[in-house]
């Protein structure tokens, strides 16, 4: 072999103990079963959690990258995370609270609004950034292997960290309006968890579709805008007429946002809606993982 003849080459790094010994070391330590098995794609398969776990450090770095870059590029940096839901609250508070006089029950409208816009902002940002994430990482996808689902997953996690920061303002508003902190608040993280699953489900689905049909990127903002008005974010669910209640409950955000708000502002829970919402969230998530996995193999060709 030509290689071992060139032992005189200078190479940076630790000196080589010997040029001839090591090949057998690797040979004798070969694992009994292959670490990697490459097979033709199956028709029905879903995202492998084991693979994502194996690549968890990359997931961490993808989230870390997005956070780092954001603080470097924008002047206001982190403050946008707080400003976005706050400014929206201000706008809606003036137009809907003062002018249209939307009822919000026993709670001040501003507090009611922020408790809805906080999860909504997370949801809409998470869905739109994860939907674009695959196209944005086209270069990586065609050059390196890693579970592709991690790209939209990282996008959702970045937005989740925004939500955590922005919820400090919610605490401040509650203090300002003298809203008592009750034990129900312990349920709030559960609704955020469910919302994350829903955002991930929609994100995976749209991300996969967006690779193939770029129109999705254009349609999505409109769709999300409609979704805002179809959910109890800026008005209470009680405004929806009774004969439309069933359809309204099919929107998983009805349960999640209603539940999140109820847990914070000590309002009664609508258990039936919560149960429907949770089931639909799970179905959507499972469905989208299958869609994603099925389209995953085509990404390098299409992207």
């Amino acid at each position, binding site marked *: 072999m030509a290689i071992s003849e060139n032992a005189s080459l200078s190479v940076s790094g630790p000196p080589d103990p010997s040029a001839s010994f090591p*090949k057998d070391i*690797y040979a004798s330590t*070969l694992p009994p079963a292959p670490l990697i098995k*490459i097979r033709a794609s199956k028709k029905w398969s879903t995202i492998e959690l084991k693979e994502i776990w194996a690549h968890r*450090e990359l997931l961490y770095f993808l989230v870390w*990258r997005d956070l780092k870059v954001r603080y470097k590029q924008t002047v206001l940096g982190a403050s946008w995370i707080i400003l976005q839901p706050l400014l929206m609250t201000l706008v809606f508070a003036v137009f809907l609270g003062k002018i249209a006089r939307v009822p919000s029950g026993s709670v001040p409208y501003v507090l009611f609004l922020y408790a809805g816009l906080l999860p909504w902002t997370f949801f809409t940002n998470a869905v739109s950034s994860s939907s674009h994430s695959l196209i944005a990482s086209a270069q990586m996808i065609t050059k390196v292997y890693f579970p592709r689902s991690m790209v939209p997953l990282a996008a959702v996690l970045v937005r989740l960290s925004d939500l955590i920061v922005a919820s400090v303002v919610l605490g401040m508003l509650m203090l300002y309006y003298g809203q008592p902190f009750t034990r129900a608040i312990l349920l709030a993280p559960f609704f955020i968890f469910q919302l994350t699953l829903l955002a991930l489900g929609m994100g995976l689905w749209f991300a996969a579709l967006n690779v193939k049909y770029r129109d999705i990127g254009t349609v999505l903002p409109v769709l999300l805008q409609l979704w805002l008005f179809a959910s109890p974010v800026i008005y209470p669910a009680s405004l929806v007429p009774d004969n439309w209640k069933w359809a309204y409950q099919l929107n998983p955000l009805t349960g999640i946002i209603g539940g999140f708000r109820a847990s914070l502002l000590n309002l009664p829970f609508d258990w039936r809606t919560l149960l429907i919402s949770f089931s639909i969230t799970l179905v959507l998530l499972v469905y989208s993982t299958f869609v994603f996995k099925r389209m995953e193999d085509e990404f390098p060709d299409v992207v």
Partner: protein
Amino acid sequence: MRPIVSVRNLSKTYDVGQLRNSSPTLREAIVGAINSPLSYLHHRRNGAGKPLRALQDVSFEVEPGEVVGIIGRNGAGKSTLLKILARIVKPSAGEVDIYGRVGSLLQVGTGFHPDLSGRENIFLNGAILGMKKNEIRRNFDEIVAFAEVDRFLDMPVKYYSSGMYLRLAFAIAAHLEPEVLLLDEVLAVGDESFQKKCRARIKAVSRDGRTIFFVSHNMKAIESLCGRVLLIRSGVLYEGADPKSTINEYLYEVAAADECNGASTPGAAHSLESRDRFRFQTL
């Protein structure tokens, strides 16, 4: 000796009809013709849905420590083979078993972010290439020394010269520690002295007993680095008795093709994006 990589009856077919709608609407047809006239024409001439065979029934085994050169004309299927081994593309049929971790370097600087500093990009790119955090930390000083960028470590890489950028990117990749390493044309970067350094590094890696797959059009590099050479011709594997005869086979093939086509354009074909690359060959 047991093989570390075993490839059995590997095939990859691209369904052209799937990539380009088999009955395109007017809008799609116009957009398609504008975007990629070459593939559009080809598609028209061959009819929709005719499968393209990028790889056909490829089988081989590689033992630990071998440096395997993969050669072939543009569009022969070299990159497809490498991408399957790297798990970027799934095969249409056949099996591959790999008894070790795989690191792929199909392009230097994959996932580099221009706004992040050199230091940050070392960690990011290392993670993308499959290194563990402590692995990167352990090799950090060595990577910086290899790339010769220590003074610019905390500067965003968008301010790097292209030479610095490539050196850093290669330095990270050169410190990958998988048992199987896939390299595609990476030696085409940098000046002569840096290329020399890269070649030395590849030799050092193989001396550690790691297995390397190396795609290149540079026959000199292939000859000096590889103990074994595989030639791919229109998706079919050929291996001569020894590296030298396989390389000669390839050179003969290229010369024959040049005679047929007159001024054939390997340079132009090279600049096409990889998807069009294998089509070009059948045009």
